[in-house]
């Protein structure tokens, strides 16, 4: 995509500083449904699978097989905790390499048995810890993307909260990428961006505005394919309704993707990402 005129006009029209920061706050709302909340509501059965078969099990990523509207689907999603204890247990939704390796194990299984893959993205980023680095954080994130890129089964990803940095994208390579209405997708958290560019994490609101992380902005930039509506006021107001709306959107995408021949689908997925970017030649 060269010099995208459409996004530019669109972005210029968008409102002031409040917009983006409001989206950040809603995306992080503590009462928002998390991955397991959605799975409990829109799967008729779900069995969580554990462990990466090498190092351990990462509670910040949930993976497993679910029965979704009459077919088996492999689900992988970031998981945050609601109370203090749960938050610490889930490591605030920040995965370690074991989490990505568990995800890869389940992607591979789905590819082999022909189950569609659905990923739910909700993370402030991959965990920046000494051990995580030593166990290969970068390699795990890169390989997870590569595996998703080459799967022969349909893949749908949806941002259901915070989609921050490579920690989010690691499970975000898909045929169709969705974002719920009040979520964000960004290269770095507004706080991190502010700390680097403004040398002051307190400038997070300005950074949020500059980063354009909202769903409409991502749609205009060609990064996502569809915005999934939420109940009035946001998903945290009505979990049941939010799950219905998300489930419907995913089901519709899966139905469409099922009509494409596997190799063609895979080629289109790769092409979709190869076309992303804005440059002048």
């Amino acid at each position, binding site marked *: 995509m*060269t*010099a*995208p005129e459409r*996004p*530019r006009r669109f*972005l*210029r029209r968008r409102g002031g500083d409040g917009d983006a920061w409001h989206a950040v706050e809603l995306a992080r709302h503590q009462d928002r449904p998390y991955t397991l909340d959605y799975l409990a509501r829109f799967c008729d059965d779900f069995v969580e699978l554990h462990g990466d078969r090498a190092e351990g099990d990462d509670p910040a990523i949930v993976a497993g097989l679910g029965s979704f509207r009459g077919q088996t689907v492999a689900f992988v999603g970031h998981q945050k905790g609601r109370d203090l204890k749960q938050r610490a247990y889930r490591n605030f939704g920040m995965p370690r390499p074991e989490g990505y390796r568990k995800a890869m194990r389940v992607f591979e299984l789905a590819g082999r048995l022909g189950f569609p893959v659905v990923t739910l993205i909700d993370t402030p980023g*991959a*965990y*920046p*810890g*000494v051990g*995580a*680095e*030593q*166990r*290969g*954080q*970068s*390699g795990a*994130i*890169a390989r997870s*993307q*590569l595996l998703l*890129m*080459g799967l022969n089964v349909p893949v749908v990803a949806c941002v259901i909260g915070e989609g921050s*940095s*490579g920690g*989010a*994208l*690691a499970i975000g*390579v898909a045929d169709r990428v969705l974002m719920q209405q009040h979520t964000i*997708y*960004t*290269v*770095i958290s507004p706080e*991190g961006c502010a700390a*680097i*560019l*403004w040398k002051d994490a307190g400038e997070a609101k*300005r*950074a949020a505005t*500059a*980063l*354009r*992380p909202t769903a409409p*902005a*991502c749609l205009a*930039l060609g*990064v996502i394919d569809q915005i999934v509506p939420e109940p009035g006021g946001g998903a945290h107001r009505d979990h049941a309704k939010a799950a219905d709306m998300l489930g419907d959107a995913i089901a519709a995408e899966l139905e469409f993707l099922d009509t494409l021949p596997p190799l063609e689908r895979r080629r289109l997925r*790769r*092409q979709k*990402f*190869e076309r*992303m*970017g*804005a*440059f*002048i*030649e």
Partner: protein
Amino acid sequence: MAKEISVDISRVGTEAGQTETAANRTRNTCPRCDSHYREEEMVTNLRVCPHCGYHFPVTARERIVQLTDEGSWSEIARELHSADALEFVDTRPYPERLQAAEQQTGLNDAMLVGSAEIGGLPVALAVMDFTFLGGSMGSVVGEKVFRAAELAIERRMPLVTVSASGGARMQEGVLALMQMAKTVAAVDELREADRPYISVLAHPTTGGVAASFAALGDVVIAEPGALLSFSGPRVVRQTTREDVPDDFGLAESNFRHGHIDLIVPRPELRDMVARLAWLLAGGNPYRRPTLIPDLGAQRAMGRILGGARRRITDMLPDRDGA
């Protein structure tokens, strides 16, 4: 993403008022052992401190001279420029930052791509330049990696990348993030076409570059002492309050933990890439040319500054005095 870049290669002394000599004095002083070198010595030593082995940073142009056969480099996609799709403004507008970086480095973005020969074998080559906005990956770097992969597939060559990057370019927002997936897609194409890929990691390779194409080489080589991590040590310390070991994220630590194949000092890098490229090509072994240790620094320097794309050892007079 590029939460931190713990590397101190700010272009000290290039501000107005300071002479070229003063600039060189700071830039060419070894931070590890305080030895100081003239610019010509730096060039002939491939910017490795002969006293302690410290590897100074290398610009993309100089890296290409160091790595490729004389006169074999041919650049593609030279005219790619970043478009400011987000109209990003922090303390300065993004286009202003781009322009300043262009003037400072003479590059259009943080990567050069093209074809070259290494040890007589044609390769597609992509080299990053840390001096251009911290080697950050935006739409142009993503597209260049993609084109380098396409070139490799088209001409049935291996792909060689040399990374030096703080990570994704924040000023391009989520589009910068997507360049990770884009470069991964390029690697996926390479693999489908059975083209081998050698990834060389220089100091520093962190964030979005470390977690995309740079990690996916069939063979991954690092330079000694290079910082190779997803998050930098300062972010780790601040976020987790953990004690960060002295060798955190360094090439040596990555080697110990099994994340890279080899650590190769810069003077041996060209030969190692050539040997691997020949082995991966599946044919005859690479035959190492006779190297000439007596380097005519002054001449080599003149050639490089004059823009000649030559390998230093190749451009020197024959040892036998020819």
